[in-house]
């Protein structure tokens, strides 16, 4: 079965090709069904192929397809191991649900089939990323998901803001990719290949006589981290993700919450062998994650756009995952990636249903009371809300608490990171409760001519399924039964992992974080369930404008990076290039012409003058020879 795993990639790719050429002929909803069918079939195949891992019978296999760039050790070769299996199942599973949802959400859009083309292409690209058996293929997927992200964010590209957001996403990602590229240069120069089985294996290092200095590994891992911060929207390269909400909501759910943005976490988990050797890098990963988590959560407190709150929340939750892989809790990081994919996709799809029902209104200040109009959506969102703030026994509780407990268990400076994580949990409870209260609870604040309604079946079904998973998936890896840890064991062979502290400590910590979440939720509930004109600030009556404008980072980046950059370009183009360099070239030409003009009178046209010149020259030469002596 495993040798056919390439079909998992080929199906959505085939779907993209078919939809690209025949999509408009297929029309609605068949184009969507084709897209859904391809991803659904890929999920089924992946699930069957993953059975040996569940039975503990396989440690993973390489599947060689064909040579790509042989000289770099970058073949089209896939790695089917538990880690890639988890990722593949999340991508195809949630992907299929979101395809289904999109059939309803994109109903009537002129770009219906184009949307599914891109979506299928994205699934294929993301699978290349997680299934690639070398850094080359990983980078291929890495860039292709960036392309799909660009295409889907700027899907409605008649809107200048959407086009600009897509471009911004791609370019900010490319900044990270430069770091990634440099990391790959170092890796290739050090190991002579990009293949995982050489780069990520202690035995292979011994065989090939590779000695890794700490400085070198630290440089490699830090550069990989730069790549990761771009794709996973961590500080300082997070700015593109809030703007990415310009894309259709299913895109936000699939790409900008569940799958693509977790690529950085996956990449760090995949290269755990290297990060393990570079404690400094790991500590930086953890710190970046913790700080990002708090930073983004604080911004989410004052956003009014229903999707922007979730966007900042995603950045914040990705911060938790970075914290986890930074402290060496790779399983916990992947576990949170896994649970977050479900409940965040659920929340995004729910807000999509709301936007749909509210005729494209996205301001939660002008919602409220939607509970009655959309009871099913509301129920699913409550599940998602409880999951993300970490209430027992919802999925987020298990994964987030594991991260916090492991961080606490590391002790020392990690107590600070734990405290930041806990504070973030409090803020998460506040802003998510604010989000759900302003949207669904209290009195209605929208215009009377709006008549919100429950979403159609294709949209509600995925919501219900995801809500179910948001409760259930947490039990895959509880402290009593760490099944996921066993499942992933082969993927992290030889990597020393951080574990939960012994004894009662985890239980106390769990109680503390649940308590914090309850306090935060209760406070926000009191503050925001009120009717009528709503005070949107979390505390007091202040304007909170700095937070609302996301600390004006975009403004600062524009002022200190974009504008000077453009000025440099202008200077280069219109001063250095046009005036200095081309000026020198044209100046030389002018100089030659001027010299010609000056010498022109010598050609008088009188033959005898030339003759006289000849004679004079000859005589001169003779005199010269004579003066030197003829010998």
């Amino acid at each position, binding site marked *: 079965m495993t040798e056919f795993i390439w079909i998992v990639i080929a199906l959505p790719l085939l779907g993209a090709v078919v939809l690209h050429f025949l999509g408009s002929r297929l029309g609605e909803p068949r184009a969507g069904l084709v897209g859904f069918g391809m991803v659904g079939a890929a999920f089924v195949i992946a699930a069957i192929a993953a059975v040996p891992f569940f039975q503990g019978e396989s440690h993973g296999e390489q599947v060689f397809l064909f040579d790509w760039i042989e000289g770099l050790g970058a073949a089209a070769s896939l790695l089917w191991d538990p880690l890639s299996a988890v990722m593949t199942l999340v991508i195809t599973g949630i992907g299929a649900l979101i395809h289904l949802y999109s059939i309803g959400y994109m109903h009537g859009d002129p770009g219906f089939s184009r949307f599914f083309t891109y979506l299928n292409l994205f699934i294929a690209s993301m699978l290349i990323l997680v299934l690639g058996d070398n850094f080359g293929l990983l980078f291929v997927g890495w860039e292709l998901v960036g392309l799909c992200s660009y295409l889907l964010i700027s899907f409605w590209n008649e809107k200048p803001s959407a086009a600009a957001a897509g471009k911004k996403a791609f370019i900010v990602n490319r900044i990270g990719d430069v770091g990634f590229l440099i990391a*790959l*240069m170092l890796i290739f120069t050090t190991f002579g290949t990009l293949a995982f089985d050489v780069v990520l294996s202690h035995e292979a290092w011994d065989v090939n006589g590779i000695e890794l200095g700490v400085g070198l590994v630290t440089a490699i891992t830090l550069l990989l981290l730069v790549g990761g911060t771009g794709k996973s929207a961590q500080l300082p390269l997070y700015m593109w993700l809030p703007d990415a909400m310009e894309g259709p909501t299913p895109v936000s759910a699939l790409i900008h919450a569940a799958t693509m943005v977790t690529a950085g976490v996956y990449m760090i988990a995949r290269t755990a062998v290297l990060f393990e050797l570079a404690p400094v890098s790991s500590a930086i990963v953890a710190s970046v994650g913790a700080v990002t988590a708090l930073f983004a959560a604080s911004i989410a407190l004052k956003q009014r756009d229903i999707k922007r709150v979730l966007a900042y929340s995603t950045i914040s939750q990705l911060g938790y995952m970075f914290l986890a892989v930074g402290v060496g809790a790779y399983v916990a990081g992947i576990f949170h990636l896994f649970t977050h994919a479900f409940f965040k996709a659920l929340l995004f799809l729910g807000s999509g249903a709301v936007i749909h029902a509210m005729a494209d209104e996205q301001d939660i200040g002008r919602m409220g009371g939607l509970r009655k109009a959309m009871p099913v959506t509301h129920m699913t969102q409550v599940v998602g809300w409880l999951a993300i703030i970490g209430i027992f026994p919802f999925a987020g509780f298990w994964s987030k608490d594991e991260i916090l407990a492991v961080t606490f268990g590391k002790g020392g400076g990690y107590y600070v990171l734990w405290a930041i994580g806990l504070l973030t949990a409090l803020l998460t409870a506040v802003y998510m409760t604010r989000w759900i209260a302003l949207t669904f609870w209290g009195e209605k604040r929208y215009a009377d001519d709006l008549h919100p309604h429950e979403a159609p079946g294709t949209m509600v079904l995925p919501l219900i399924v995801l809500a179910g998973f948001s409760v259930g998936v947490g039990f895959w890896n509880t402290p009593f039964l760490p099944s996921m840890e066993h499942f992933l064991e082969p993927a992290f062979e030889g990597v020393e992992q951080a574990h939960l502290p012994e004894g009662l400590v985890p239980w106390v910590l769990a109680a503390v974080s649940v308590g914090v979440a309850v306090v935060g939720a209760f406070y926000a509930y009191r503050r925001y369930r009120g009717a009528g004109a709503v005070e949107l600030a979390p505390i007091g009556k202040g304007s909170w404008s700095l937070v609302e404008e996301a600390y004006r980072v975009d403004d600062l980046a524009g002022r200190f990076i974009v504008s000077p950059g453009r000025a440099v370009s202008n200077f280069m183009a219109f001063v250095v*290039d046009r005036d200095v360099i081309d000026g020198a070239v044209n100046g030389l030409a002018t100089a030659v012409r001027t010299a010609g003009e000056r010498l022109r009178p010598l050609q008088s046209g009188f033959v005898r003058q030339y003759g006289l010149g000849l004679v004079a020259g000859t005589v001169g030469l003779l005199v010269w020879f004579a003066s030197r002596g003829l010998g």
Partner: protein
Amino acid sequence: MFPTLSVMIWLPVLGAAIVATIPRKRSEIALPVGLGFAALVLALAGNVVWTFVSGDADFQFVEQATIYAPWGITYHLGVDGISLLLVALTAFLMPIGILASASVTERHKEYMAAMLMLEAGLLGVFLSLDLVLFFVFFEVMLVPMYFIIGIWGGERRVYAALKFFLYTAIGSAFLLAGIIFLGAMASDQLGTPSFDYTVLLALDIPPSTQRWLFVGFAIAFAIKIPLFPFHTWLPDAHVEAPTVGSVMLAGVLLKLGTYGLIRFNLPLFPQASVDFAGVMVALAVIGIIYGALVAIVQPDIKRLVAYSSVSHLGFIVLGTFALSAQGLSGGVIQMVNHGLTTGALFLLVGMIYDRRHTRQISDYGGIARVMPIFAGLFLFTAFASAGLPGLNGFVGEFLVLLGSYARHPAATITAAFGVLLAAIYLLWAYERVFTGPNDKPENQGLKDLNAREIGIMVPLVAMIIFLGVYPKPALDRIGPSVGAVVERVENAAVLPTEWEAATR
């Protein structure tokens, strides 16, 4: 044995002669006749690529004859992994260029004759293994290009054509001096003058002499590439040239420079190549970053693509002077890739210019809505040019960057930022031309591409994908020849100590 290579060179000449004799009244048949000849050459080139033995570093399809024995000038042709794909690229782009010549409305005969002579010259340059023969073709090809720009070009065509011609001719003077010096040197060392490349490889050239000769050759090639700061003829030539002129210029002519560096400078002057590697790499990296920065703010889309060429060609030079198998392979395949993607970009720019007669980015906006196929193709090509993995541009850049790091770490890291800048100038241009509201009345009635235009693009798109996904056939053919060059340099030259440490 059938003299395939000779036929490839002289068939277009015959074609040009036949086209020139078409009566003026029937000049409309010039285009199909020219296309027929170009297609024949393409078929021959395809056959050469197909039957080329890929594990072999030596020259294949060799033809040899004496032209003038006392001076050692021979008619020596051959193809190896370095020239093979460039020959194929030339033969591939020529029929596409001819098909895209709908905008040529006058002097069809002369135009087609010039195109065919250009093809003959280009193929001759890549196939010559005698330096005098090489030089003759190197110069011959200037003449048709001069006329293509100067007669069928834009408003400042005479200025641009003259600048192009003079600039290149100045470089050629240095090249000629170097070639003659080499011939004389052969006469001293071997007893008989020779310009045969394979004979000259056996010369023992003292390092100081190597440096002078290297500089002479390198100036000629640097102007052709063009390497910073010899690049300013390029934007002018591109902007004024007709679409086909730009396609051939960017697609093939620029590669003469990089090809010359790889073919002559490295094997003939190995010590000087090592000594000057730092300088060449520095110029290449400056070109990469500088070209990209300048491209960002160009108001004219054709100028933008022209400056992007300066940036992309820098990668080729960087890979060349990495003097590693990966870097050089990357450089060679990047030549082909740049020819395909930039050729495609110029074709697309030409198509929109034919409709609106303006190249100013600010005259457009939101035209994706009325020209979706065009927008899709442009975006596709732009991403190929920006080095998106899975498309061809990436393979070369990736090989160059990874292959160059060991010997030029700082320069290679700087070059990596060129990848970022490429995304900025291409996507920003795309944003301004294609997205947003279509609010200019002149742009609302634009017609999407017709069947002929799509037909022109299809083979390019197919090659862009093929070389991106499965470059193995190409890399296998390049590999041995490039490996031989690297080996030659490493054996013949004293490498700096830090290089020895960097490559185990």
